[in-house]
């Protein structure tokens, strides 16, 4: 059936709520408002205010309460409206959710799922356009996923809820409107492993989240020029599936990592370093990185577009690696 990414996420939440009475959703405006991005529209009516809980503007407390509820036997899905506000809850995520199992010597696992919107591209300016995935991917104890396809948007939530440990899901803001076909009934999508989304011989482009569609578009255009691109979708940002990446790059001998995060200290750096560590001798050229410009996101459209990697930028960067 034809479905949007937004609907895929909503269906995944609905299914989870139907499947397990311990599951509930809480966050800012997930209920009466219908979700800031309309993802949760209709859920309040279907499941009632006990299971679709509008919270006050208290990111620290409601994320912490989600952790507590998880410890107490529930399976909360906590929505942080966007990653931009998640800093207000970061202490709870890092110092409690991610550490509790270890600090308690294995006694207390925290089966919480935290969803948040990430990314720029909608002219929301410096405070509303962050891509902070690498901050989360840096933290042991967390699992971090970035569904970039409809199937992953639809299928990863069930796996995340089945996981005994905290899982953070990043949904890129520009993906919600993407439409495509999904076969029903759905199967769960695993929350481990990268995926080769396109095979090619000349270069591997590694991307995730909002950058995947652009990487695929760039690959199409490059193939018209005789450059055969393989595209790896990271899918899971922690733990990274190094094996899939290395296997690909060992074949193509060249790689470009595309990442909407700021370049310095980026996830792209991690992927790049791992490629060098793993297949240095197989590389024909240094691994390239294409990241967002190191600037708080400007509002003006032309500046924002220039700050975030576009298809044309990917093409240029990939060519540079191939020719490098």
């Amino acid at each position, binding site marked *: 059936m034809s479905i949007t990414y937004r609907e895929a996420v909503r269906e995944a939440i609905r299914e989870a709520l139907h499947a397990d009475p311990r599951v509930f959703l809480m966050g800012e405006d997930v209920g009466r408002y219908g979700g800031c991005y309309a993802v949760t529209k209709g859920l309040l009516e279907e499941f009632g205010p006990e299971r679709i809980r509008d919270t*006050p503007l208290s990111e620290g407390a409601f994320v912490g309460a989600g952790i507590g509820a998880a410890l107490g036997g529930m399976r909360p899905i906590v929505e942080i409206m966007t990653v931009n506000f998640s800093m207000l809850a970061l202490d709870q995520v890092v110092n409690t959710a991610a550490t509790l199992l270890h600090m308690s010597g294995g006694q207390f696992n925290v089966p919480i799922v935290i969803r948040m919107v990430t990314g720029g591209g909608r002219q929301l300016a410096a405070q509303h356009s962050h891509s902070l995935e690498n901050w989360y991917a840096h933290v042991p104890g967390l699992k971090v996923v970035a569904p970039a396809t409809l199937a992953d948007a639809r299928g990863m939530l069930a796996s995340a809820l089945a996981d005994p440990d905290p899982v953070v899901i990043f949904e890129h803001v520009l993906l919600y409107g993407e439409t495509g076909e999904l076969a029903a009934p759905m199967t769960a999508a695993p929350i481990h492993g990268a995926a080769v989304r396109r095979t090619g011989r000349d270069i591997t482009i590694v991307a995730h989240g909002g950058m995947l569609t652009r990487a695929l578009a760039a690959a199409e255009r490059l193939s018209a020029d005789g450059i055969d691109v393989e595209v790896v979708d990271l899918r899971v940002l922690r733990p990274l599936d190094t094996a899939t990446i290395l296997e690909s790059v060992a074949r193509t001998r060249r790689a470009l990592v595309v990442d909407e995060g700021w370049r310095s200290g980026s996830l792209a750096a991690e992927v790049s370093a791992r490629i060098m560590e793993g297949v240095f001798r197989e590389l024909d050229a240094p691994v390239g990185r294409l990241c967002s410009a190191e600037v708080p996101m400007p509002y*003006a459209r032309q*500046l924002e577009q220039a700050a975030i990697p576009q298809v044309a930028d990917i093409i240029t960067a990939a060519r540079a690696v191939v020719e490098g």
Partner: protein
Amino acid sequence: MSTPAAAAAPPALTADEGRLLYRGMLRIRRFEEKSAELYTQEKIRGFLHLYIGEEAVAVGVMDTLRPDDAVVATYREHGHALARDVPAGPVMAEMFGKVEGCSRGRGGSMHIFDAQRRFYGGNAIVGGGLPLAVGLALAEQMQGSSRIAVCFFGEGAMAEGEFHESMNLAALWNLPVLFCCENNLYAMGTALGRSQSETDLALRAASYQVPAWAVDGMDVVAVREAAQRAVDAVRGGGGPYFLELLTYRFRAHSMFDAELYREKSEVEEWKRRDPIPAFASRLEAAGLLSAADRETVGAEVEAEIEAAVAFAEAGTIEPVEELTRFVYSEAAP
């Protein structure tokens, strides 16, 4: 909660004062109506939060400030900027993303700044502006100045930890800061009663040992009077002060809001208390504003908005080569 000011009582204002307040509100109203229009035309992008219905708050409070006081607002701040005398042209140009915008097009609707008028934005993290205002007040106190800091925020922000920490710090250190809570009853779709366990917000604020009053935010004279009392107290060294300004947003939260969470009838009810015609009628009844005055003001405002739009339209698109400017300070040229 205060009772609405008796609409019949003549305001204790001169005709000039009355006209200025009326004009100030109308300017915001028309500016924002125009902005909404321009948004549908995609001249303005990103998020756009309208202040329509709440004009009496910004206009009433700002009228009591000195030009050298510091003002901190939220993402719903066109009204505050205009009331603070930031010229309409640069505000509109900002929303057009032009170099002539008051933030050079880097900020957009949510990030209006004006150093000359000590207008510190334009903060789009709910509650994020409060500590800033506390710090600005701290600077004034440490420098022994008589300036104060004023911050505006919604009732939804009162649930944030930063509200709590800021109130406590300001009270502890007796800082010259005026907290203006714009209680428009909703934070996006979340009604006050679902966001605060104590819905008498002035009472909540008073628990920090901060003097706190609720004011009818639809009555620009009541707002101005209360603000004047508060500003005098703060400037006089009395420490922080809190005003709850009871108001209502007539429009959607932003341009992406289906308003599923409130009844049309409630909105209509509040629109009957529209601060602008109500104030005009009072002025007229008191003989402080004639129909002709009203028309003149209306025409002036229209002209100003038109000029602002023209200014914005004529503005410059910044070349992308400039992208990474203003990440760090540039050496003075």
